[in-house]
């Protein structure tokens, strides 16, 4: 018996304006509304709406044998409401089928776990609240921003009441072990760890349209045979990926939607296969052993570490200076200041400052709204300077 567990990440950051030194003290609007709205509308049209429709059809066609899970960030939901409200409705329709699970994460898609436990927990609670408000849903499984994970995170998640947690199935933590089982995080009882099968996930998310890949073109039929091959040496194949894979990272003309359309049918053709959501996986299986992950892992790049967000001194300086303001921001009690401060925590802002792949102009470049990483840093630091002035004026 192999369960296929899909989890899709849905996120859009509030992108910053090219905030200049001349804006400091004069303009406290940090976000590029035009860009955010046009990107949101574009992605809604290319990805969210058509993919949601397709998934809804597939759930209905299979009477719920096909099922999936989502983690939708608070800032994505806020921007849906602002720029593309029909996307919220289509997610509500999906959740209402009863075959879609929602996960919790930090509202602002932040790296708060690394800098402030207090802030981290507040953001998770805000996300919980949002899930209740919009979907009348109480998530039971937690995933952290960019699958940033270690033993301690599992402990906190357990303390906050979660039954399961997701992480990257990186080679350097698994060694000879397989990601296709559940594990028990070292040092914590009562929470189960699910690991991403990165090979099969990335076959869809990254390699699907790569013509130089020896498996190109990837068909649903072929992918199903790879799932079948797990039979006998695994309980679950965790396919974790950005939802924008469908229609945005992989454009419609690559055939990605047709792939998704036929995938449930091909996988269910084998009576030993099924689809499960994370909570169902956790109910159905027990951990095969303990997994000790004292150091941080993430799902990014080959390194599977934090270097995409905190790899250079610009990134570190920006984020450290931001978190330094925490107590002052909270003391101010000013809702706008707190909201701005939190929106500035979104991990994407630091990702845009990454110089790691800069020289080979890789995937980072594609996601970068600025010309160069240095420009992102300049805008961010100018904003922070203005923010400090506002904070000081408020607290005086």
């Amino acid at each position, binding site marked *: 018996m192999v369960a296929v567990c899909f989890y899709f990440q849905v996120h859009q950051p509030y992108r910053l304006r090219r905030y*200049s*030194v*001349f804006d400091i003290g004069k303009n406290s609007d940090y976000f590029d509304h035009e860009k955010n709205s046009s990107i949101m509308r574009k992605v809604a049209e290319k990805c969210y709406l058509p993919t949601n429709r397709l998934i809804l059809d597939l759930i209905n066609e299979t009477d719920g044998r096909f099922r999936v899970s989502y983690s939708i960030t608070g800032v994505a939901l806020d921007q849906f409401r602002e720029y593309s409200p029909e996307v919220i409705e289509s997610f509500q329709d999906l959740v209402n089928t009863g075959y879609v699970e929602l996960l919790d994460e930090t509202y602002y898609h932040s790296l708060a776990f690394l800098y402030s436990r207090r802030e981290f927990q507040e953001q998770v609670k805000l996300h919980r609240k949002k899930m209740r408000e919009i979907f009348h849903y109480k998530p039971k499984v937690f995933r952290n921003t960019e699958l940033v994970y270690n033993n301690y995170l599992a402990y906190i998640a357990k303390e906050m009441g979660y039954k399961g947690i997701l992480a990257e199935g990186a080679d350097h933590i698994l060694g000879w072990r397989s990601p296709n089982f559940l594990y028990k995080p070292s040092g914590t009882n009562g929470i189960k760890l699910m690991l991403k099968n990165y090979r099969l996930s990335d076959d869809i998310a990254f390699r699907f349209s790569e013509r130089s890949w020896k498996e190109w073109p990837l068909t649903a039929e072929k992918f199903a045979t790879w799932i079948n091959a797990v039979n006998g040496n695994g309980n679950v194949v965790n396919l974790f990926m950005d939802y924008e894979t469908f229609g945005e990272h992989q454009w419609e003309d690559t055939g990605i939607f047709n792939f998704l359309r036929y995938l449930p049918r091909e996988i269910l053709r084998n009576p030993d296969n099924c689809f499960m959501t994370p909570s169902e996986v956790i109910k159905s299986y027990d951990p095969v052993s303990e997994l000790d992950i004292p150091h941080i892992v993430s799902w990014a790049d080959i390194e599977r570490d934090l270097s995409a967000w905190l790899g*250079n*001194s*610009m990134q*570190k*300086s920006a984020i450290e200076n931001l978190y330094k303001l925490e107590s002052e921001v909270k003391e101010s009690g000013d809702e706008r200041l707190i909201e701005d401060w939190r929106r500035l925590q979104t991990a994407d802002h630091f990702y845009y400052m990454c*110089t790691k792949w*800069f*020289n080979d102009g890789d995937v980072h470049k594609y996601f970068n709204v600025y*010309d*160069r*990483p*240095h*420009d992102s*840093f*300049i805008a961010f*630091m*100018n904003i922070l300077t203005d923010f400090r002035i506002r904070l000081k004026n408020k607290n005086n």
Partner: protein
Amino acid sequence: MRVLMFGWEFPPFNSGGLGIACYGLTKGLSRQGVEITFVLPRLEGNKGEDYMKVLYAGSGKVRFRSVGSILKPYITSKIYKEEFSRSDPKWSIYGSDLFREVYRYSQEAKRIAEEEDFDVIHCHDWLTYPAGIEAKKVVEKKGSKVPLIVHVHATEFDRTCGNPNGYVYYLERDGMNKADYVISVSNYTKDMIIRHYGINPEKVHVVHNSIDGESEPLLDEEDFEIKKYHKIVLFLGRMTIQKGPDHFLWIAKKISEIDDNVRFIMAGNGDMFSRIVEEAANLGIGDKVLFTDFLSGRDVDKAYRMADVYVMSSISEPFGITVLEAMKNSTPVIVSRQSGVSEIVKNCLVADFWDIDEMVNKILAVLNHPELRESLAIGGLNEIKNFSWDEPARKCISIYEKAIQR
């Protein structure tokens, strides 16, 4: 492969990037076994010839010839007349204006072409195009063929900010039309060649300039007294309209209003020099802007090292080799988007030359954030390490080969 090359200037008697580029390119070519006869309007006496022999000691593949004129690459017709009247009469017999001198250079080129054996003619910028055309004719008269390559380091549109002298434009276009291939130093310039000169894009090949990143030991760390008290923003280039020294002053003015402690060094000379000095005083920043006049050799490196940031504010810069020099000296760079160098260099900041606010924004960011400065300096240095004149030389050789086979 033997190349007959026509140029205008060569270090140490250069006033701009053209001489540096010719020096670098001939070095790269000679390292790959190309034999070059390099023709210059004049050699600066015996000293000059010795110097050039020293430059190529060991390879022996580059020879220099001169035709003894007062041509200078960035000269304007007006300055030429002034200089002409002051110069030695033996150079004056052929004509009293710049264009007659260009003509005379081309006639001398005929004589040289008669005496030399070569497979390709390679001309650097418009003053030498008539010479190249004449040399090609000499070969054709003998009944054989030799390709003509013209290398565009700058166009009249760059030098004059869009108000070209008609005759210079004519000579440029004539050279490009008669050439077998045109080499341009950037896509930015290629675009200009296509748009303003109507040259078939397939005939134009882009060969970006370079720098020998690993060669020549860098200066030792030096303590500059001024740096203890001030942050320094550097302008380095000819003071002509093309380089935007006036824009730099407006930038300096704005920065001074925000940070009183920043000093601006303007290195270079040119037809706008006195105007710029006066303008600095007019703007009330006469005490903040320091002038060094034209710098060469080690002094250039020193200026870069002294600076916290180098700003290339050019209005139209076909390439911008100073950016590579600054990066080699670990100096953070802000470069005008209207430039060729911004096509190939990553570890620098880019802004439109006319966007004074954005220039100021970026300069202040570099001055105020050590992390940014460090990222640009280290990133730039690492990037430059992979640069070498061998690369453009290889591209030129393949263009030569293609032209010969045609």
